[in-house]
């Protein structure tokens, strides 16, 4: 269904590269910074700064699609790795394990799709440190809720910034993130649908929250 979204569809003219090149030379680029720059935000000293106003305010374009798809890919890498490690760690059982397995397969499929859509323009996978949240069922559960709710807000925040072709694909992913969020919330005895209108968040807000977790180490 989503195979029609090819590199041609999101053909970039180097917007992300341009942004990357525009960083101060004195700033040593870590992989995290590269990921976040590709996501439209410059991270300096661990604080995400909403940079690149030109990109943020621009109308949808293929170049901007690349930037946003790489932002989405960063989040999907994070989610996929989180569930992969939680399963491998062996701390989960019962319904939590079932949840982790199903959701891991979805996040891996999202990563594969986004990498395929971006082709050579896909950013590399960062390195992660989940700080023990994958080794403890209670921490896993709490972290999963945050990650999935954040995923929903992140995709919803980009809806008006992407071309219609990318929007069609993103719409098919975001509702799955919402299903994950409701599922883990119900498992955790929290309201699966806490509000009538889900909030949208900007890239700067999302990346600030992600940076604050310290999960991305390089």
């Amino acid at each position, binding site marked *: *269904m*989503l195979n029609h979204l090819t590199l041609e569809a999101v053909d970039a003219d180097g917007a992300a590269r341009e942004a990357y090149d525009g960083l101060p030379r004195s700033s040593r680029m870590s992989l995290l910074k590269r990921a976040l720059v590709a996501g439209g935000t410059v991270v300096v000293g661990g604080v995400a700064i909403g940079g690149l106003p030109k990109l943020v305010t621009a109308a949808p374009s293929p170049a901007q699609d690349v930037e946003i798809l790489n932002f989405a890919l960063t989040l999907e890498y994070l989610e996929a790795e989180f569930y992969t490690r939680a399963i491998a760690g062996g701390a989960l059982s019962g*319904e939590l394990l*079932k949840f982790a397995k*199903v*959701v891991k*397969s*979805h996040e891996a*499929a*999202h990563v594969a*799709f986004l990498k395929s859509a971006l082709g050579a323009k896909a950013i590399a996978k960062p390195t992660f440190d989940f700080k023990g949240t994958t080794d403890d069922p209670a921490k896993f559960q709490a972290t999963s809720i945050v990650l999935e709710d954040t995923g*929903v807000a992140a995709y*919803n925040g980009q*809806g*008006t910034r992407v071309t*219609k*072709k990318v*929007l*069609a694909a993103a*719409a*098919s*992913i*975001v*509702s*799955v*993130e*919402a*299903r*994950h*969020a*409701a*599922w883990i919330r*119900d*498992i955790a005895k929290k*309201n*699966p*649908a806490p*509000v*009538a*209108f*889900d*909030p*949208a968040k900007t890239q700067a807000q999302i990346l600030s929250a992600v940076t604050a977790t310290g999960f991305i180490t390089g």
Partner: protein
Amino acid sequence: MTIHEHTTMPAFTLADVDSDGAIAEAMDNLERFADTRAGFLRKSALAAGGVIGGGAALGALAAPAGAATASDVAILNYALTLEYLEAAFYTEAARVRNWSGDLRRFVTVVGAHERAHVAALKKALGSAAVASPSFDFKGTTESEAAFRKTSQLLEDTGVMAYAGQAPLVDSDAVLGAALAIHTVEARHASWIRHLNGASPAPVAFDKPKTMTQVLAAVTATGFITRAPAMTSSGGSPSFTG
């Protein structure tokens, strides 16, 4: 709770009573409207289920929905029709039966959400808002088994409906609202699926459905028994739901 279902989206069966032609015709009008984007005033009045004279429709649309196009008006009225259906379903369910436990919470929370969606869409559409159809839920609001199954179908359908329309929306304001509702429908779908012992997230990519596909499925349920009444010139549509 065991997860025993990993199939893709369920489909409404066509075996049910076929609704009368009026609804289908009204919905076809909405669809043509969305496809052609022509005849803004005349067709937006038609989509609203009433005749709107002069610039009333334009004035109403300008406010909360931003620069709403004729196509967006059609999409919003389509969404409103689906939300009327969902809101009426849960409102009736809460009235006719004393639910307990998880289902009670679900009916209460989801019913409030669907009514909030109706209110938001009506506000966005102003005088161009279509009136509520009349409904007959054929006992599915009373029988627990039928309620569970029907709720799951309605919520999954809502997800597919919004996903299908999102790329067709012109206005950023309308799109933002639609996306905010879309994922809440997905949360509802996941929730009732979990309560039903079905997989809350059966596939990695939810499938969009076109307006035609969704309306055919809705028509097949027979839940919509009467199209909104046409109102006289200049009057506000009458809301029955």
